[in-house]
């Protein structure tokens, strides 16, 4: 996936001289996750820069550069680091268009690595879509592999709004064939059906896409697996259409139960498709604890394909939401 991201950025830089890149160690070192290999060499030090450890400084700089004519692509190494610069994202970047009566635009991209599974401990392993979800003026997308990373990154760079793209860290090393070019750009706000199915819509995002697919492949039920891809805006129509067909919605999330992105989907779908639902929407999530250290525990944190298979089966059998595995500990 890291190569696809690099390629997406390079393709946009090639076409549009306004696109610039900066972040911590993205230039000379070519990115802590090797998502900018060759960019400095190709596009030179005016367009590809290393920054100090100053997230507020450089995200603020992205806002200013974007408002005055450039299209900065910035990197937040781990999504948690956005916490030291949160104001610039949700209160400055997101509101400047509105605050100028539409006269300024803020075409900037913030890429951030997210997620658990690599043993980084609780301050370097979250997905944290919840920090941004609901912020007017901001777009938010999540990559699930090389193909979606390529398509979403190019779309984000072309968008005239601030766009945050979350990249599951555990997928950087995964390889998937990508067909570079305009045709592979993915419109922000569109979901994708990765597998058709009749019994239940399995809605996934980021790292849970592969979990949902694996679960569906070996299950007794027939699952329609969707990659939501964008959270702001999110594809209400595609999700509701699928739920109307299957009568069931299961959301597989990497985050904790409370406040996860699935609450947004679940509450909207239940409000809009109440009579089409044969059972409550089931959210399969991690427990309400910090991401634990130690690989065995961390793997337990993220819902596994087997667990999803069982939970969905229980939902379909009983038409009620089964208790999560962690109920006994909570």
């Amino acid at each position, binding site marked *: 996936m890291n190569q696809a991201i690099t390629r997406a950025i390079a393709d946009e830089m090639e076409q549009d001289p306004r696109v610039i890149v900066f972040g911590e160690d993205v230039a000379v070192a070519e990115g802590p996750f090797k998502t900018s290999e060759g960019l400095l060499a190709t596009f030179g030090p005016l367009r590809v820069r290393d920054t100090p450890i100053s997230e507020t400084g450089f995200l603020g700089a992205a806002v200013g*550069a974007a408002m005055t004519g450039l299209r900065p692509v910035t990197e937040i190494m781990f999504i948690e680091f956005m916490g030291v610069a949160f104001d610039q994202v949700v209160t400055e970047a997101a509101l400047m268009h509105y605050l100028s009566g539409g006269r300024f635009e803020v075409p900037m991209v913030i890429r951030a690595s997210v997620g658990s599974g690599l043993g980084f401990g609780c301050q370097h392993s979250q997905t944290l879509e919840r920090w941004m979800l609901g912020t007017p003026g901001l777009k938010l997308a999540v990559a699930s592999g090389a193909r979606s990373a390529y398509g979403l990154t190019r779309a984000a760079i072309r968008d005239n709004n601030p766009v945050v793209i979350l990249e599951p860290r555990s997928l950087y090393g995964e390889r998937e064939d990508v067909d570079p070019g305009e045709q592979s750009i993915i419109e922000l706000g569109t979901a994708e059906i990765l597998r058709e199915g009749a019994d239940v819509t399995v809605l996934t995002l980021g790292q849970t896409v592969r979990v949902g697919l694996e679960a569906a492949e070996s299950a007794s039920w027939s699952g329609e697996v969707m990659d939501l891809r964008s959270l702001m805006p999110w594809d209400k129509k595609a999700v509701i259409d699928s739920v109307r067909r299957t009568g069931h919605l299961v959301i597989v999330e990497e985050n904790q139960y409370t406040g996860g992105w699935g609450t947004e989907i679940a509450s909207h779908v239940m409000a809009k498709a109440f009579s089409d639902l044969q059972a409550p929407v089931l959210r399969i999530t991690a427990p309400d604890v910090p991401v634990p250290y130690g690989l065995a525990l961390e793997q337990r944190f993220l819902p596994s394909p087997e667990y999803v298979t069982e939970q969905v089966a229980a939902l379909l059998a009983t038409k009620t939401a089964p208790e999560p595995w962690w109920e006994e500990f909570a």
Partner: protein
Amino acid sequence: MSQPDAKNDPVQRRLELSSNPVSRLERMMEIRLVEDRIQDLFAQGLVSGTTHTSQGQEAVAIALASATRPTDVVCCTYRGHGVALALGIKPESVLGEVLGRQIGCMGGLGGSMHLSDPDIGLLPTFAIVGAGTPVAVGAALQFATNQTDGVAVSVFGDGATNIGGFHEGLNLAAVWNLPAIFLCENNLYGEYSPIATTTAVTDITKRALAYDMAAETVDGQDVDAVLATIERAVDRARSGAGPTLIEAKTYRYVGHSRSDKATYRPEGELEQWLARDPIELFAAKLVANGELTEEGVQTIRQHQHDLIDVAAQTALASPPGSIPQMFAHVLAP
């Protein structure tokens, strides 16, 4: 005196300042009168919410506008009426914004704390202390990347120098050697707190030492002195010699915001500063130079009064922001 037509164009208003000292006097008066009027409008109950006026600080705003070009970029604060007017936004547009009217520079959806106009390089003024500093650095980065000779200015208060974004912005501008100017209006208070209780240095310019950055302190009540200082910084920036921190020592005559009676000020302090009012000082200088007569000054003052009366009427006649406007500019197309 300038033509009414020119007065109607923000860019022309801006350009005239650079060439004409009398216009600088006029426009300091304009700022004073508009802000007095804003306070009236609040007092009359025509506006709710809050406002932060800058009576006493007009010289800094006018010097900034005179020393820079409309193609430069300015990031200013919630105490921004003066800078907005100086850079060229028309009085009715500032008053209208404060009143939430469609004639306001952002259609009445932003309010007193958020004034802007891309034509004169004014980004929406920043209501979060310190937030504008890195954003100005970003504008400077744009000039550097495009290799033009533009300059970006961050305007902020003494209190803002205690927040992280200030520090990060200065370091970044220094490391990248950007065409940025950091213009501190040191008015001795951050809200109700005197600088000594919140800030470990008395001279804000000391903070430039942490970034090996050029710095100058200037008498903020002397418009010519501020102008000369900013011009030196602008030259430095345009010629590739990097950023400058400027500290203008100044004072706000009124409280921090509408509800503040400023009872925390030591006795006599206000009076001392009033005795060095930037408008009076500059008027006296122009008279002494022979550029104006005492009578001429009075005429200008009256004329500005009349203009602001009209502007206020124009603003009040404009309809309030509409419901469709609320939805119009959340996302760019």
